[in-house]
């Protein structure tokens, strides 16, 4: 929660927010299904294998990619590893404490992970170097710089843009079981682009891309990740409220539509970054 406002002001604002929403509007002037301004800046961390900074309204997130060798799991000897972590840096909010991630932060990382993994954006078998012995591990580390609601989407867009611009080290096999880093970097091959859309249930209405103020009063949250205008790859309901089936159907329609529009923005920012 923002720390600099008095409780009375907060309370009056919530009243106002609910009133506006019942009229189909929001206090920041947006329509119910409208997202905030979005900026995506890939390449902000030059020393990472890939990176992107995302600003969604006042929410700011950086995702950094590191690609290093690792050992595959016993039951998937021919697959590389995808590891997604997140941290709400203590600079990001007065209530963000340093320390091991709590359930909210773990959920954030896992929902981003699910979107990337289930979209098959990255083919993990592409990351195998020596089956059963050596694979590439793709680390997607997400640092939240400022919190103003909808971390799920901001983190997801940052992760996806960072992956789309990522390069990985090229290894060659010298002799059986021994590999050598060629020192070259080749682009990480990616396929579909997963785009998440997060919605909040407030006063029985669905609003897209909630702010922190809206999250404070929402009853439930629903995130849907799409890969094309007709494909859904991940979903996550959160918070102690419930949706009707109708609301879920509206949410899915919205996510498919919004997904197309965000996907274009991501592609454009990536193309711009690659030209530089």
């Amino acid at each position: 929660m923002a720390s600099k406002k008095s409780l009375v002001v907060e309370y009056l604002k919530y009243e106002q927010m609910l009133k506006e929403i019942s009229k189909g509007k929001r206090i920041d002037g947006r329509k119910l299904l409208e997202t905030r301004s979005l900026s995506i800046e890939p390449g902000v961390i030059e020393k990472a294998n890939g990176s992107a900074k995302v600003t969604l309204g006042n929410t700011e997130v950086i995702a950094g990619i590191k690609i290093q060798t690792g050992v595959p799991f016993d039951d998937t000897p021919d697959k590389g590893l995808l590891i997604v972590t997140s941290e709400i840096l203590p600079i990001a909010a007065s209530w963000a404490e340093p320390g091991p991630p709590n359930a909210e932060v773990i959920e954030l990382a896992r929902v981003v992970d699910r979107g990337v993994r289930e979209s098959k954006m990255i083919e993990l078998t592409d990351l195998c170097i020596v089956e059963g012995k050596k694979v590439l591990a793709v680390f997607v580390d997400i640092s939240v710089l400022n919190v103003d609601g909808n971390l799920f989407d901001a983190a997801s867009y940052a992760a996806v843009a960072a992956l789309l611009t990522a390069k990985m080290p090229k290894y060659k096999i010298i002799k059986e079981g021994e590999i050598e880093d060629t020192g070259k970097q080749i682009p990480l091959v990616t396929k579909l682009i997963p785009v998440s859309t997060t919605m909040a249930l407030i006063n029985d209405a669905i609003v897209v891309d909630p702010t922190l103020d809206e999250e404070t009063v929402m009853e439930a949250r629903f995130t849907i990740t799409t890969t094309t205008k007709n494909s859904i790859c991940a979903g996550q309901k959160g918070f102690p409220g419930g949706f009707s089936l109708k609301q879920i159907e509206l949410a899915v329609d919205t996510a498919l539509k919004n997904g197309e529009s965000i996907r274009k923005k991501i592609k454009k920012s990536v193309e711009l970054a690659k030209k530089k």
Partner: protein
Amino acid sequence: MSKLLNSKNRRLDGRKLDELRPIKMKVGVIDNANGSAYIEFGRNKVMAAVYGPKDVHPKHMMKTESAILKCRYHMTPFSTGRRKNPAPSRRETEISKIISEALEPAIVMTDYPRTAIHVYVEILQSDGGSRCAGVTAASLALADAGINMRDLTSGCAAGKIDGKVALDLDEVEDMEGDADLPMAILPNLEKVTLLQLDGDFSHKEFIEALKLAKKGCLKVYEMQRNALNDKYFGNEKA
């Protein structure tokens, strides 16, 4: 090419696409607990227990107008194919959170201000769908503890295997299949309180799976009612 369906659309264990696995439920299984339940959902074996309402520790988590709900979903080390490391996994932390959020809307939290209600879900054996089995058992345990509730929470997944929408995937179907949609509903309030999704659904398939999962949840709800009746009104079925 994985083949989870035969030519007659029967699944590896002989089930039809819209058929649940065999389910057993028993209410009141842990002597020390305020409420408890045991469920077998196919090969899933799940025990849930409720302690409370009781004092809140640490104090600063106390709410003056309502109870707080603390929920842990936990897998015993021997419950999984490979041994599960006893340290809590990120997966367990996430599922604990969503189960808690699926149960809370059914509980009259304001009837128990300044207290904590503890719900523990123990997966003794898992075989695909343990979170749905878990939330179902937990809801029974809450009812058994005499906690005031608006509704039960009833869980069941749908999914997609070999390109077809199917009810209640087991572990092999979950691993080898195309998509999974775990869900839980409040049957009388008609609310979806748990919903996750992973895999690949078209828009149409998603809607189909959503409706199939709801049907499954309603069947589970019937069984929950029977299990409670069995304990409290003694109409045990042989």
